[in-house]
């Protein structure tokens, strides 16, 4: 006898599954969010695992390197005792085989929120060092990113709107030329011109150590002065990138019928630009901004290095020179976390911002 029973209504057994399925159908939005969050956790775990094994497979023994550097500073005699090495191995999580080390690391990272002791500044755990550099990087790169996004949006909308003008064409070509040049190159030229030739801005460090860090005018103006050149070198280039993408979006939008209709209705051109054309370009631009903000946690190694700016990138290079495992791994983990979290927030936010985006 052939009987067709819908799987949902099968009696008994799959009670929980059936409830889950019913819940998913009843709440598509929440179920999308949950699924997206699970994917996020999975990717996070995957990339942490990849980086963990990457760092462990690199030849070189950090403990040996550390003891050697201590010996170079003549803190210890010719050879460190076996006990000391054993002690270091334990606190650095290097006991046992690779799998046991992996469990130790993951446990430390996820349960204890601890990255392990750093070598740069020994008893301090790595997260303390990272937390010290993070504000500088976030301040510098975050501000530079947001400023260039806003400028790029405005200028890009203008050159897209007036795309037939010769001037707009030239600006576009200049942008194409500049948009892919590494920040570092501009930074070099700017340091040479503005810091050395004309002596307008300081070329290194984040503030003048004469002033006490705090909420006083001297300190703040010193921070702004020191941050100006690195920020400018980033803004000059990334504005061009945002301008090009805004212009590209504008140009494709301007061909749409509803804009012709808006013009036929006799709306003011400015109204059409702001309310009709630009609004439809926001979505990819906001996505781009979010992804770029996520990448901030990488720091900008070259620019920070060139200006000796005490951010994440600078810390990273110092950590690499000292072969400071835990700090290096912590910074990489932070960078991964930043990018993935930015993506997660965007994916959850976009459907709210633009009703045309479908959950799937």
């Amino acid at each position: 006898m052939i009987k067709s029973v819908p799987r949902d209504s099968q009696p008994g057994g799959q009670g929980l599954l059936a409830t889950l399925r019913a819940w998913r159908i009843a709440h598509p939005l929440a179920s999308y969010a949950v699924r997206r969050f699970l994917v996020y956790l999975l990717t996070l775990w995957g990339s942490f695992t990849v980086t963990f094994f990457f760092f462990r497979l690199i030849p070189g023994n950090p403990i040996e390197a550390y003891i050697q550097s201590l010996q170079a500073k003549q803190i210890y005699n010719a050879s460190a005792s076996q006990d000391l090495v054993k002690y270091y191995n334990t606190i650095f999580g290097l006991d046992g085989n690779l799998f046991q080390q992996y469990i130790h690391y993951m446990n430390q990272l996820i349960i204890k929120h601890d990255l392990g002791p750093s070598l740069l500044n020994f008893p301090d755990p790595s997260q303390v060092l990272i937390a010290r550099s993070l504000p500088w990087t976030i301040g510098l790169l975050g501000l530079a990113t947001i400023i260039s996004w806003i400028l790029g949006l405005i200028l890009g909308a203008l050159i897209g709107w007036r795309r037939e003008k010769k001037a707009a064409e030239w600006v576009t070509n200049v942008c194409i030329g500049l948009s892919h040049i590494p920040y570092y190159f501009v930074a070099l030229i700017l340091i040479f011109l503005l810091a050395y030739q004309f002596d307008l801005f300081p070329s290194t460090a984040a503030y003048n150590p004469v002033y006490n860090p705090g909420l006083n005018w001297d300190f703040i103006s010193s921070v702004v002065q020191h941050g100006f050149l690195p920020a400018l070198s980033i803004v000059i280039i990334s504005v061009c990138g945002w301008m090009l993408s805004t212009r590209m979006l504008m140009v494709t939008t301007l061909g749409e019928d509803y804009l012709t209709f808006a013009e036929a209705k006799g709306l003011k051109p400015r109204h059409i630009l702001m309310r009709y054309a630009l609004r439809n370009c926001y979505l990819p631009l906001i996505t781009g901004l979010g992804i770029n903000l996520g990448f901030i946690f990488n720091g900008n190694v070259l620019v920070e290095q060139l200006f000796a700016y005490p951010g994440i990138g600078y810390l990273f290079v110092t950590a690499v020179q000292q072969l400071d495992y835990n700090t290096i791994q912590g910074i990489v983990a932070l960078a991964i976390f930043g990018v993935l979290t930015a993506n997660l927030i965007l994916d959850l936010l976009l459907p709210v911002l633009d009703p045309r985006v479908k959950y799937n």
Partner: protein
Amino acid sequence: MRRFLLALGGLWNASRKVQAGVLILAFFILVAILHQPLSALIGHGRDPLALSEAAAWQMPNGEHWLGTDRYGRDILAMTVTGLTASLEVGAIAGLLSTIFGVIVAFVGGYKGGRLDSILSGTTDVFLVVPSFPLLITLSAYTSRVSLFSVAVILAIFSWPFAARTTRSQVLSLRSRPYVELAKVTKLNDFEIIFQELLPNLLPFIGVGFASASLGSIFALVGLEVIGLGPSGILDLGQMLNWSQGWGALSLGAWPIFVAPVFVLAMLFFSVNLINIGLEEVYNPRLRKTAGA
């Protein structure tokens, strides 16, 4: 083959941006190939890179068009020689990552199914892992590397980009009518990939190759600026490292860092032009409106 050449000719005529980009790129490649006779010409028969009695830190003049460095070596000759090494690294790294990325993309994109999910999942994880920090770490631990091994390391980090872009193209081409037709006429997978898909994707693969090469060149420059990277090889990044180490910025000796920065920026510019030109050709919506 004839069909392919015709298509290339069509591309050439279709966009002035592509023309300009190809010409700039071709010029630099030519300079790199001819670097030996060129540097002989610059040195008037002597080796312009040998330590010489010429005065140090000369500004550009008739004898040394771009001046000299700390040891009286000619900077123009340094730039030409450095360009060769940089392009060499770029070519090797670009080639390796393009080949690997394209294979992954074709296998995953054409076959689909679970294999595709695994391959693109792996690609995604690699894309998220921040490559430049890892690159720095890797070169810090492996000191004294050769030009070739640096190129291989660079390729490890750039293949996912090639795989990602090619895969999306394969996905869109897979369901085109002429591929369906080829399937109906019982061509096997290899024949379809090599006769139908690959020729249509060559411009994209070419651009992917150029971007991967440039990315690798810049990554190497970045490594050398920090003071890592292969030892004993003169390339453009090495010049930048020297200019910083020798305090050229504060001495006002601009040629030693302006020359490599200019050359690298022009390389970026040309590849970018080709990229944008191709996009306009393939996406007619942009063609009329994109400036020039």
